[in-house]
């Protein structure tokens, strides 16, 4: 079976990204986004793109990237999840980048890899691999993730007999921001527009599909990072919070719940890693791995965040404590790129289980 462990290089990458997130983000300023919306935290994004160059992980060196791959991008996303970082890594550096990669595009992809531009795929954020429809008519598409602040929009438009993929400059259409449940990945309504046609028919379809697959596969790692962070934060909190003259983490009911959560988070890690690895290897089991990871990691992230709120007691309910940021991100991510129910629905036929 494919390797599920982290390489030394990946460990080093994790350390760099974690350091950058710690330097450039703090929970209070992240919470501030809810009152003063912005597409992303400029300093954190700059650090990821300019200092660390991780926007180009998926892109080969000869097209302006660093020639790594999904395993490495997954490590970055684990750290983004851990920090609930408001950065467009998943939408621009993974999904949009993968769409362009698939098309053999090289001009814009170099700009994305270098962090000189960001892009977004214009589909509702709930679209999933194998189940999405190209944009019809002139009504705004919503809710679209990563479109706020993006330079480039990739719009798959319905055409007689298929899809036409348009590259539209943000300035050439209207991107209206929406009040999002998770303001750290703000959503927008994007008015469809025509632009440079990148591909049509099967090519266009395949490229969008590849973008969504990469997004779903690697979102699992972001969810895992978030879940693990919730577990660690909560373990730490219950060790230190004293009630009834003892740390509440010494109460057996709480210990057992956290033991169960540890199991879930650990398994989520294996599932996310397997999804990233099969994507990297273009393994025949890729579609199975993605559905498994999306179903499992989505729910584990929500459960971990919900347990974090509950076990932080009243503090978990406040605006002051950062726990709420995790819950909002987790719940939104559960809906992103297909709900667990939909992925479970998709999985059966892949493993010869049908109704």
């Amino acid at each position: 079976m494919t390797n599920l462990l982290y390489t030394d290089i990946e460990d080093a990458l994790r350390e760099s990204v974690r350091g950058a997130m710690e330097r450039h983000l703090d929970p209070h300023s992240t919470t501030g986004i809810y009152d003063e919306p912005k597409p992303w935290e400029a300093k954190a994004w700059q650090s990821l793109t300019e200092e660390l160059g991780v926007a180009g992980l998926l892109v080969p060196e000869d097209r302006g990237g660093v020639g790594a791959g999904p395993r490495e991008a997954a490590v970055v996303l684990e750290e983004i999840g851990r920090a609930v970082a408001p950065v467009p890594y998943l939408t621009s550096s993974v999904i949009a980048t993968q769409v362009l990669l698939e098309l053999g595009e090289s001009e814009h992809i170099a700009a994305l890899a270098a962090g000189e531009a960001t892009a977004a795929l214009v589909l509702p954020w709930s679209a999933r691999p194998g189940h999405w429809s190209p944009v019809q008519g002139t009504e705004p598409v919503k809710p679209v993730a990563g479109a706020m602040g993006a330079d480039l929009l990739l719009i798959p438009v319905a055409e007689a007999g298929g899809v036409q993929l348009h590259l539209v400059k943000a300035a050439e259409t209207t991107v209206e921001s929406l009040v999002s449940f998770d303001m750290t990945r703000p959503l927008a309504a994007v008015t469809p527009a025509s632009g440079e046609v990148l591909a049509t028919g099967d090519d266009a379809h395949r490229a969008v599909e590849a973008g969504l697959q990469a997004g779903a596969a690697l979102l699992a790692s972001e969810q895992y990072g978030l879940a693990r962070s919730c577990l660690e934060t909560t373990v730490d909190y219950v060790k230190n919070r004293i009630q009834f003259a003892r740390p509440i983490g010494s109460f057996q009911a709480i210990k057992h719940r956290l033991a169960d959560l540890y199991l879930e988070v650990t398994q989520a890690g294996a599932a996310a890693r397997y999804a990233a690895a099969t994507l990297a290897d273009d393994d025949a089991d890729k579609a199975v791995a993605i559905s498994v990871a999306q179903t499992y990691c989505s729910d584990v992230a929500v459960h971990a965040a919900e347990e974090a709120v509950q076990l932080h007691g009243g503090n978990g309910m406040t605006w002051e404590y950062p726990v709420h940021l995790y819950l909002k991100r987790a719940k939104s991510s559960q809906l992103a790129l297909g709900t667990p129910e939909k992925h479970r629905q998709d999985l059966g036929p892949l493993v010869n289980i049908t109704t």
Partner: protein
Amino acid sequence: MSDPKTMLRQRVDELLATYDPATVSATEFLGARFDAGLAWVHFPEGHGGLGLPQEYNEDVANWLAEAGAPEPDRSRNGIGLGMVAPTIMAIGTKEQQEKYLRPLYTCEEIWCQLFSEPGAGSDLAAVATKAVLSGDTWTVDGQKVWTSGAHHAKRAILVARTDIEVPKHAGMTYFLVDMEDPGIEVRPLRQITGEAEFNEVFLNGVKIPDADRVGETGEGWKVATTTLNNERVAIGSGADREAGHIGVLAEKWRKYPAIRSEAAYHELMHWWIEAEVTRLTGERLRQQLEVGQPGPEGSAMKLAFATQAQAITGLAIELDPDHGLLYDDWTMHRPDSTDFLGRDVGFRYLRAKGNSLEGGSSEILRNVVAERVLGLPAEQRLDKGIPFKDVPR
């Protein structure tokens, strides 16, 4: 002598004849109702009652409702009406009863509750806010939290530590506080929903006359328990089918075929059934109360309500992802009252997270059920018999 019902009917008719609800103010009407002994008929005469059995309150309420008479605003003064009044009636002095019950009832004076502290959440008896007696005036210093309505309350009930040399349950005292005291500062406490439904309350040198102590010095725990017991009585009894979150979701399901799927159907029905059996349990509890045989189900039912509220709102978000990804409004507000079902699904989901914390966390309630209902052995107490000042905090 006529039977109580006939007598009450007469009194109600007299009240309505003298104070026409259509023309007098709510305050005036409620004051007159109080003076007529029709506020709570089981209270003694002179304190808004007539010393009759509690069951007659329902008749009075029904007759007055038919006549379009105003009721006291429970959403604004729930603490006053539901907790303070019975506590003062049971334990307060005659002076306290005379001074506080009437304006409380007319809602001229709104009350709030100063119990929880940052270090005393589940462990309510760990309050550290200090009250020191000098002459016949207490001086209070400390910090309270999770106080709803503090910003429009005239008065508060307060539990404070008056002796740190005795074990924690023995060193607390219960007071009535004037919220207009210059030593009180109320700050909004913003929540996960974006709203500030609650407040933090800072007490710096707040003065309380000893006459506003309820119960003996050092008996605050006992008095607070009386207050809190009044909070959990008859929880959710007698609700209609599909009341609450499940009804909101079922209605949406009926209205929008697009959100339906086979898998979601079974999950929806699962929670529909859970809500229904909890409703039936509440109905049975109501019937038991009616015949004077209250059961111990209340604490367990609160567990069920919290679980269901959280699961159902979570499911509601999942059923309509493109809508669930949005939120109605993050702007900071200070709402006058709580409406769990108000606003959009995202708010309902976030607000429901509080249901397993406020009014006794689900963890504490499971302890209560295990120990008081099932008789399982109590947890080892590490703070038993130790002076408060020596207890680890």
